[in-house]
């Protein structure tokens, strides 16, 4: 029991960590395209970890499945949203940010 609680706590905290990282990415990344990366990846992973953390404490099978359904919906939703925004930005000719010479680490 204590082990499950521990695992649940770790999953929840990791999920929150990824949410924070995703928001930080939205703040730090230089242009729309890179921000879409932060949004679709870090946030969906964060939500997924939180969902799996809550799954461990779910009281019944339908509740667990509902949590998974919500995650799936959120996945499709934000992947679609990210794609649509990136495509719209590309169509309008928003230039992707380029690293300066030798940029990155």
């Amino acid at each position: 029991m204590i082990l499950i609680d521990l695992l649940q706590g770790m999953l929840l905290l990791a999920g929150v960590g990824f949410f924070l990282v995703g928001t930080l990415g939205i703040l730090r990344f230089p242009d729309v395209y890179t921000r879409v990366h932060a949004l679709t990846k870090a946030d969906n992973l964060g939500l997924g970890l939180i969902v799996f953390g809550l799954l461990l404490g779910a009281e019944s099978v339908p509740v667990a499945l509902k949590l998974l359904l919500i995650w799936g919906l959120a996945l499709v939703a934000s992947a679609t949203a990210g794609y649509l925004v990136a495509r719209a930005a590309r169509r309008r000719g928003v230039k992707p940010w380029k690293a300066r010479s030798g940029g990155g680490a």
Partner: protein
Amino acid sequence: MPWLDLLLGLTLVVTAGLALAARDMFRAVVMFIVFGLLMALAWVRLQAPDIALAEAAIGAGLTGVLLLDTLGYLRRPFGSRVDKPEKHQ
């Protein structure tokens, strides 16, 4: 959970203020959408999940869509700022 409620209440007021203060219409609309979402959370904290459901559907969802659609029909009052090339911060 006083911290949660305090932070939620403050953010709610700040968001409402920002939505009012925004000169850029698009910014105001997005702030309004966020305000609807936070309002739904506030209803949750007030033990009213049914109102939260309505607020999430109407405030954060449908009203946002309608306002964005309206903006699309207006003649781009926010036009010049839209495609400004960005600088790396």
